[in-house]
């Protein structure tokens, strides 16, 4: 799917401003043509990383390579990339068409080629007929498309996106998500995309880079992060509703996997009601949310609160007491102190451990 030569290489990057740490030392390799999502809670350094790739920030230490060239000291304009900003950053005094070809004009492209590329960008983003409008006369979704059109018109192989969907409403966000993905594949662009929304990351990414406190927590394809979370943080951040993390010491002995302390993580869809004679965790139903195909059951137990995603319409009501259980193959074990995954304890029929990408 991707060529073997890495397209972007970050080595030993740190960036801090006085006391505030932006990026605490990361190494990252991005392959050509990949859709890579930098995911993490706010303040984790994902936007800083993107701005370091863009050249809007200069790292304190470390190097940035794009397409084999060291661009650490180059300004953004000489890195051969385009960028979509969270606020779209459209120039209010320019029309849609002028906004899109802004960069082409700056670089002095001949008029004929400008209009040719403009036509292509307009039709790719469905903006035909809006050329002469000012950004102020457009809806949020249309402004977003103009920003996209401006990013693709130059034909740069790399496009950086900083939370481009966060100003759209939920329905539009879903549509545009698909469009961006389609556009990326059609044009064969490498996209580095920043978001704090894990569903966005899961739905779009070839690879997810999960960040926390300026460091990379885990990286790999979305399914790896979901199925083999490397840490308790990764387990709780990826997936919605989040994975239940239960302290082993508070579970009934049959469910504690032989751990004295440590965390046992179970995805909501792996939780089920215990059958007769099966060991279970006693829990009280605190809420029931019927979603159609499945039902979210909110539970409170001695080991803490958890959410179960049960198929269909289970016969539980608010306030009733249930026994909840899970299969040994569905559980994830984490060390209590470090939160690190305890990989494949002996004697378990867990799926074979997959390589979770390049860990740092």
């Amino acid at each position, binding site marked *: 799917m991707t060529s073997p030569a890495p397209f972007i290489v970050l080595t030993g990057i740190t960036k801090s401003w006085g006391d505030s740490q932006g990026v605490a030392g990361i190494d990252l390799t991005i392959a050509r043509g990949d859709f890579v999502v930098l995911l993490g809670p706010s303040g984790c350094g994902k936007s800083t990383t993107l701005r370091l790739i*863009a*050249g*809007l920030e200069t790292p304190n230490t470390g190097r940035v390579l794009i397409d084999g060239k060291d661009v650490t000291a180059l*300004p*953004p*304009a000489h890195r051969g*990339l*385009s*960028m979509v*900003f*969270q*606020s779209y*950053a459209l*120039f*209010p*005094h*320019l029309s849609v068409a002028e906004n899109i070809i*802004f*960069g082409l004009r*700056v*670089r002095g492209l001949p008029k004929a080629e400008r209009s040719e590329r403009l036509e292509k960008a307009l039709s790719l983003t469905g903006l035909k007929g809006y050329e002469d409008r000012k950004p102020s006369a457009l809806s949020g979704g249309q402004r977003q498309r103009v920003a996209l059109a*401006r990013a693709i018109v*130059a034909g740069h192989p790399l496009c950086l996106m900083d939370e481009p969907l966060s100003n759209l409403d939920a329905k539009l966000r879903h549509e545009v998500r698909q469009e961006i993905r389609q556009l990326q594949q059609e044009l064969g662009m490498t996209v580095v995309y920043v978001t704090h929304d894990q569903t966005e990351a899961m739905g779009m990414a070839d690879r997810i880079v999960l960040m926390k406190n300026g460091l990379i927590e885990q990286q790999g394809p979305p399914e790896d992060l979901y199925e083999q979370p490397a840490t308790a943080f990764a387990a709780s951040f990826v997936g919605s509703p989040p994975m239940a993390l239960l302290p082993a010491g508070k579970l009934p002995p049959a469910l504690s996997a032989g751990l004295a302390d440590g965390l046992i993580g179970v995805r909501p869809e792996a939780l089920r009601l215990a059958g007769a004679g099966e060991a279970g965790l006693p829990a009280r139903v605190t809420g029931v949310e019927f979603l159609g195909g499945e039902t979210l059951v909110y539970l409170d137990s001695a080991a803490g609160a958890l959410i179960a995603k049960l198929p269909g319409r289970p016969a539980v009501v608010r306030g009733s007491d249930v026994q909840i259980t899970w299969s040994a193959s569905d559980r994830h074990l984490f060390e209590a102190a470090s939160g690190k995954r305890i990989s494949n304890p002996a004697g378990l029929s867990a799926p074979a451990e997959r390589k979770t990408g390049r860990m740092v």
Partner: protein
Amino acid sequence: MSIATPTYASRTSVTLDAVGALLLAVLWIAPLAFALWAAFHTPQGALSFDLFAPVTLDNFRTAWAGAPWPRYFLNTTMLVTVILAGQLFFCTLAGYAFARFHFPGSDLLFMLILLQLFILPEVLIVENYAMVSRLGLFDSILGIGAPYMASAFGIFLLRQAFKGVPRELEEAARVEGCGWTGVLWRVYIPAAKPVYLAYALVSIATHWNNFLWPLIVTNSNESRPLTVGLSLFAAPESGVNIAVISAATLFTIAPLLVAFLIFQRQFIQAFLRAGIR
């Protein structure tokens, strides 16, 4: 001044405000109104305030023939143009530097520039005179204009306007290939357009009317602006009567008056808005 609650007290204060405003307006317009009256009447008619005194255009003919007015108009036009051009150039660059670049001592330097606003220009007349002479600009348009070009007010105004421009716009322009001059030209200047308009109007009005400094630094008709020319024309020893002086005054202020009427809205609105930011 709440007019939302029509209590007795507030209504009284509104009335007082209106009366006060009206009084000020009448006081302000009175000299202009008198000039308008006097310019179209004979000196006797002008002072008698006889409503049926004969109307005449002779005053304008006399006044126009009495001094090299076209030369004065040319000088004033050149003067305000040179000053405005210099101000736009210097204040744009300085405002941009103070708004977006951090260099050692930039805050201190900006404070010093703001302090300049507290100094009356008249205080500096002697020092400026010496400086202009040393530069060999005495009795020239550039000499009249030079002290005003690096305007502290303009620098402040444009710095504020530039600071109001979202950073992401600048970053987008930089990603799209602009250097710092490109960012200034393509992002900041277009964004500050209303501020430029307001500032230009005020600058033109101020320097069209400026009198004391041009009077001191000029001594020939080749560089004298309208204001100085008018004062020489109206000097008592030239024995010109009030009606003729009024006529001359009217045509010296006419271009400014017309400009004000055209740009009235921008003049007031844009300037108020620019100050708030």
